């Protein structure tokens, strides 16, 4: 291909990319729904394979010396140990889910357990890919919990999967209030590891350690979507900054370690 042709092709490619960028977000979502539906088995199988590899790794390198020696000598033991690790992992997962379910049952929500099969590929967005979709009754906007803590809301739903936008995501804005209901504001994400509560009235009295929970919000923009339930724990106030102007803001400390989330609970109805 001649130099001139190459230049034309590159310019046309860039123009096409700009056209893609200017398409409505709905078009982007429908394209991604089709693609993610197609690749869902790949993510699911990859997650299972990596889980097994991790179990074998843990058995091989984090077992005690005697076990390690035995593993080297006898392949059969390795296989059995791997199975044992797998079973232990399952028990741990079940115990974690059981604990979460008990906590949530006390809060009065109907929930659905979901496995996290993927995460956002880059650090600009904070999303999770879970293995529950429209066929399980999940709707756009559905709150997602870890224990009784709100970790995000469903942003995109496929038949067998959903994409959860974490509360850390810069596009996330959750109406919130303190547990006693005296102070209201908006919890916004600021990327990995930081949660901020803004739009708090300037004269509102906030104390470090106050628990912040979600305030009820009907899904006005998407009437078919799920409303946000009230009273889901978001975090505790770590520091308050009294800015100039009408509002003050606070940094929140979440009780959830977002990097460790491997199962979540989806609030299907109240």
């Amino acid at each position: 291909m001649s130099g001139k042709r190459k230049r034309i092709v590159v310019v046309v490619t860039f123009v096409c990319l700009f056209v893609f960028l200017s398409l409505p977000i709905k078009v982007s979502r429908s394209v991604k729904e089709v693609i993610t539906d197609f690749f869902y088995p790949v993510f699911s199988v990859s997650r299972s394979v990596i889980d097994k590899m991790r179990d074998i790794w843990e058995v091989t390198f984090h077992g005690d010396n005697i076990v390690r020696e035995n593993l080297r000598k006898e392949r059969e033991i390795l296989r059995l140990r791997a199975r044992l690790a797998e079973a232990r992992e399952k028990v741990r997962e079940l115990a974690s889910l059981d604990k979460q379910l008990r906590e949530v049952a006390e809060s009065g929500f109907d929930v659905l357990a979901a496995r996290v099969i993927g995460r956002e590929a880059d650090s600009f967005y904070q999303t999770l890919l879970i293995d529950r979709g429209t066929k399980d009754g999940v709707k756009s906007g559905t709150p997602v919990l870890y224990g009784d803590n709100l970790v995000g809301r469903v942003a995109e739903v496929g038949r067998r999967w959903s994409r959860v936008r974490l509360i850390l995501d810069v596009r996330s804005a959750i109406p919130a209030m303190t547990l006693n209901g005296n102070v209201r504001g908006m919890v916004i994400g600021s990327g990995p590891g930081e949660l901020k509560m803004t739009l708090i009235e300037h004269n509102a009295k906030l104390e470090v350690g106050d628990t912040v929970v979600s305030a009820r919000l009907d899904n006005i923009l998407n009437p078919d979507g799920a409303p946000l339930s009230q009273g889901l724990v978001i975090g505790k106030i770590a520091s308050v900054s009294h800015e100039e102007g009408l509002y003050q803001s606070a940094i929140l400390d979440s009780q959830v370690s977002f990097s460790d989330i491997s199962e979540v609970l989806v609030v299907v109805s109240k």
Partner: protein
Amino acid sequence: MRARNVVAVLLAGVVLQVVLPNAFGLYEALRIQFALIALVCFSLERDWFQSAMVGAAGGFIMDLFSGGRIGVYALSYAVIGLLIGRFQERLYKDNSVAIAGVMVGASFLSSVLVVNVLSLYGIQFDYLGLLTRSLLPSAAGNAIVGCTIFAILRRIKHARSRTWKRSYR
């Protein structure tokens, strides 16, 4: 390398990027960008045209699996591919420090481009906060993994060319 193979490598890179951080519970902010590493490794050996095209394809795949708008990564990766492909001949490719520099540069350039494109849609980032919390560790991770992969690929390439020369003689 055939286009089909390149797309398969990029796709595998993106799938790894999506699945790995979750499976190993890695530090939340650390994201090894396998697709970007694959693009840089490719661009260091090819001309600007092929690199830009592969960049656009790789970015497009990233867009399909990310939670944002389609075209953001495609645009930024196409620019990165084009730039590396354009200037790769001036680099001494057996120098790991130079390659690490290219990896870090590509990571930062990608982030700057993505942040700027997203700001056109009203999505604002605290860039300084993101830089310290996430972009620096990710760039360092990309440099380490990318340098290792590139060094392995160079060795394979050298070994192949030596074998080819011997058989030719």
